[in-house]
């Protein structure tokens, strides 16, 4: 193929432009990564971990409280029952016990 000098120059210029763009992209890529590293350092900073920990503790506390209120409700049923035992019910049981105490 016969190529003119002008055309060769044009191709060389295009190649140079592309190389420059790639170099620029590499620099930008490095900056993106650096920025991410810096953000990662921020994330791993003690204050941030402390904040996360506090958020989790608060979440756990709510969970525990919910779990306990559920359990408390059931345990309250037990307590309520004890308070609701009537003399009539005790009479019934006492009658059964009387039979056993006085029988052979």
């Amino acid at each position, binding site marked *: 193929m016969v190529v003119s000098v002008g*055309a060769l120059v*044009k*191709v060389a210029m*295009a*190649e140079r*432009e*592309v*190389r420059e*763009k*790639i170099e*620029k*992209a*590499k620099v*930008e*890529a*490095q900056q*993106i*990564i650096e*920025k*991410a*590293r810096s*953000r*990662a*350092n921020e*994330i*791993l900073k003690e204050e941030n*971990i*402390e904040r*996360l*920990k506090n958020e*989790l*503790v608060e979440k*756990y*506390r709510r969970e*525990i409280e919910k779990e*306990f209120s*559920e359990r*408390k409700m059931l*345990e309250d*049923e*037990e*307590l*309520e*029952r*004890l308070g*609701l*035992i009537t*003399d009539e*019910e*005790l009479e*019934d*049981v*006492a009658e*059964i*016990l*009387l039979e*056993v*105490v*006085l029988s*052979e």
Partner: protein
Amino acid sequence: MSEVEEIIRKIMEEGDKKVKEIIEAARREAEEIIKKAEKDALEIAEKEARIIRETIANRMMDREKRRLIEDKVRLKDVKIKRLREILYEKIEKVIGGKDERWSYEKILYRLLRDAVLEIGEENIVVSANKRDLEFIRTHKSELETKLEEDVGRKVNLSLGDPVDITGGVICATPSGDKIFNASIDSRVDEVMKKMSAFIARRLGMVSTARFRSLIRQMFEKVREKIKIKDALGRSLELGPIDSVESIIGGETRIDAICKEVGGGIIMVFATLSQATKERVQRFRESIEKYEASVGAKKSKTVFIAFSGVESKDVMDVLRESDMYLLTRKELIDLSKKVGMEM
């Protein structure tokens, strides 16, 4: 487009693609770096938070347990004390001859005979309260003759000191090396101890977990069709039941889901306390959730309230909701029908 222009276009296109690739790879890497950092941070925070969680849970558990145990023990003691009082009132009636079903003289003789048999000696020193001691003194020869017949050997009774007991006797050999306590008080202690599990069950002095387990066991024992009257006077037909499960957790509470052999599903809510509007509502919502999630329809709903209903309104709510109500009385009836002691 000339050939050269085409080459240049391709060079530029390739270049742009490469640039895009570089930036995208960097973004991916950046994203990974941040994600990893977030994951690491969360792991560290979680590790520390879990330790605190345990501490909080243990502290709350201890506080709750202490509160519950103290209250429970106090209330149980009060009720058991009252039960003993009632039992002693009944015993006093028997001793005073005010309960026609029993003859105290016969009971006293039986206790004396048991003690004589247990000691196995001829000479027996009998201690009792003043009243019974007087009875033994005035009927001594009569009692000795009857004892001789019953135990098959000679028995010499001598009167000991009066003791502070409700009834019955405490017998010993003259040397005191053998003593047998056949007092009513000792029988009461023994029976109360031996029957403590029965007393707890019959009075609903058990934990909620135990109560639910008893309810599930009872439904599991429904092997054939059973008809009972509920506390609202309606006829309730149950069984035969094939399997029983339960759903408890979060907002849903169905204490027993009983699958009948014919395909029917009986939903059961069981509380040791009373039926209240709130509990009925919660049960209703739980059933709706269960039906929506499983796609199965209940055939009957049973509300078990060991301590009855809070008010008449609740009975109306139960009727409107087409729920059968079983209280302590109906539960005892049902347990008898399935051959289980409640």
